[in-house]
């Protein structure tokens, strides 16, 4: 039959490609942006971190807010660019597998359907939710693992707009068990922006640059108390201080980490080693380099377009684990998982705790899984095991699941065709997807 376009329409990144392939052909930010040099909003052609374009103070328009499609006109614009110039598909002869956030509102579902069938005229449509696709993918990768034998898993999707803990049973998301924290990558970037703007340089307009800072420098602390003490130290004892250089628009149009090695120093603080010893060993090894580095720092400091980060590096991702610290009245990720599991049948509890799958871009912070396990263990009954699996590529995990589903023989029978949509309308077609 016709080809299937798999589209993981995330709030941050849009992942699209042909069903059956391993990797999506196109991964672009799901937004339009307007750099200072332009008067019009432009379509991103690649992920913006890999362009050489000057993105200083670029304004952004996103069709998706809090994970849900609120601006269909803008989305139509982005999709038509995607289908015609990037993917080169003709919608009328292909089928679309689209991901949608859980618990989408009926009005949003209707506008999505209108977009797919009336504006683009796709042949057929299947709307999937991301947890079940991740489950499908992980189950197929390890046919004899627990996830596929027990046919259930707990998918923790920590994405751009929010974080979901969703139990999946027999390839279906158990919707009464899903729990959500209203914090994702976007909120973390904005929080980092706020901190840096107050403490050193005003970067409130630099969404793309701060995204880059967050991806390169932030990490999850395994022991916050200890790390705060380390971050308080002065000079070279402070393992966390590192400098990010903002673009100046003349010699370089991209910001960069001044000393990438220093940025990685936090990794030597493992649980076993006490901070002081770790520092000493480190000191001996690069005693010579220190002099050069400090010289260099003083020299470049005159330009004043850089800022230091210390405790912000781990206090920003920390918010996912304890949103209460931010003043949000929400439980942290570990508690979120426990509540999601507790909402399911008691027989599933031990299996769910053993098959936690992490997916979504925000789980890419170093040591995310380690910290989660540390937080989760005290909350789980003693006789249950806790096992957390990370995906090899958390950003593409959902898309790969969708690609797998699109190439399965049952796919065709699960779709809603254009004729059915015209006959029955949006609401009744949607019932087929059991959302």
């Amino acid at each position, binding site marked *: 039959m016709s080809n299937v376009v798999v589209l993981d329409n995330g709030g941050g990144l849009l992942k699209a490609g042909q069903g059956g392939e391993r990797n999506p052909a196109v991964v672009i930010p799901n*937004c339009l942006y307007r750099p200072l040099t332009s008067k019009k*909003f432009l379509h991103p052609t690649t992920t913006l971190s890999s362009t050489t374009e000057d993105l200083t103070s670029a*304004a*952004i*328009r996103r069709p998706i*807010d*809090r994970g*849900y499609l*609120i*601006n*269909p*006109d803008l989305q139509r614009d982005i999709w038509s660019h995607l289908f015609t110039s990037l993917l080169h598909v003709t919608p009328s002869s292909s089928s679309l597998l689209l991901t949608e956030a859980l*618990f989408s*509102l*009926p*009005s*949003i579902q209707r506008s999505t359907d209108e977009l797919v069938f009336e504006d683009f005229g796709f042949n057929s449509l299947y709307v999937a939710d991301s947890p079940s696709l991740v489950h499908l993918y992980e189950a197929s990768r390890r046919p004899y693992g627990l996830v596929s034998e027990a046919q259930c898993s707990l998918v923790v999707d920590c994405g751009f707009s929010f974080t*979901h*803990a969703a139990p999946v049973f027999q390839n279906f998301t158990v*919707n*009464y068990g*899903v*729990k*959500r924290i*209203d*914090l994702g990558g*976007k*909120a973390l970037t*904005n*929080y980092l*922006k*706020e*901190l840096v703007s*107050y*403490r050193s340089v005003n970067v*409130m*307009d630099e*969404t793309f640059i701060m995204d880059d800072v967050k991806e390169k420098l932030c990490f999850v602390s395994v022991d*916050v108390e200890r790390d*705060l003490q380390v*971050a*308080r130290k002065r000079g070279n004892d402070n393992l966390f201080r590192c400098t990010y250089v903002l673009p100046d628009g003349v010699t370089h149009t991209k910001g960069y980490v001044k000393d990438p090695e220093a940025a990685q120093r936090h990794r030597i603080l493992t649980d076993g080693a006490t901070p002081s010893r770790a520092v000493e060993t480190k000191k001996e090894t690069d005693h010579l380099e220190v002099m050069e580095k400090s010289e260099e720092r003083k020299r470049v400091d005159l330009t004043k377009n850089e800022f230091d980060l*210390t*405790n*912000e590096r781990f*206090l920003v991702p920390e918010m996912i684990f*304890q*949103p*209460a*610290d*931010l*003043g*949000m*009245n*929400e*439980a*942290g990720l570990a*508690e*979120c998982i426990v*509540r999601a599991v507790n909402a399911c049948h008691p027989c599933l509890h031990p299996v769910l705790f053993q098959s936690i799958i992490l997916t979504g871009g925000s789980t890419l912070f170093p040591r995310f899984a380690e910290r989660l396990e540390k937080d989760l263990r005290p909350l789980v009954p003693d006789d249950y095991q806790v096992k957390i699996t990370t995906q090899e590529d958390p950003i593409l995990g959902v898309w790969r699941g969708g690609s797998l589903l699109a190439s399965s023989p049952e796919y065709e029978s699960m779709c809603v065709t254009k004729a059915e949509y015209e006959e029955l309308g949006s609401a009744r077609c949607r019932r087929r997807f059991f959302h």
Partner: protein
Amino acid sequence: MDDENSNPFRRMSSRTRKVAPKMAAALASSDNRTQAALARLEALENDNAGIETIEPNDDDEASLDDDDQAYMQKRSKGTKRKTRQAKALENARKAPRTFLELLHEANLESLPAHVPSYLRAAVGPPSSTSRRHFCSVCGFTANYTCVTCGMRFCSGRCQNIHNDTRCMKFVA
């Protein structure tokens, strides 16, 4: 409060009972402090910095002149011209609505309690009420609260910075 009345035999410490109504009042009140905190959280979801303005379509800006010309022509012809209010209404209809508006419109509260929905999927308040406080100036553990605005700071030095730069600067 209903719980307490319905079950007189339930033992509760007097302390929590004293605190809870105050907390509830603080959350429901419209005073500046809570509003500022809520506004801060709300700002975390903004795409661009500053106040999120709902932008009209790109071509609207370009077509301003045309509009003016058309408007002049129309007036000369004596036909009914668009009032500013009508225009604003039309723009409001065209403009994308925020998710919160859509959520409000969907009226999810009216669903029976067992139906899972966006609202019921929220994780809910944490089980422990303890909260760590970080200094709003330097980020380290903060033991003191600003009496004027309620933000936290950790030392006299940070307090001075806070008073100079931030205190009550964003509330009023």
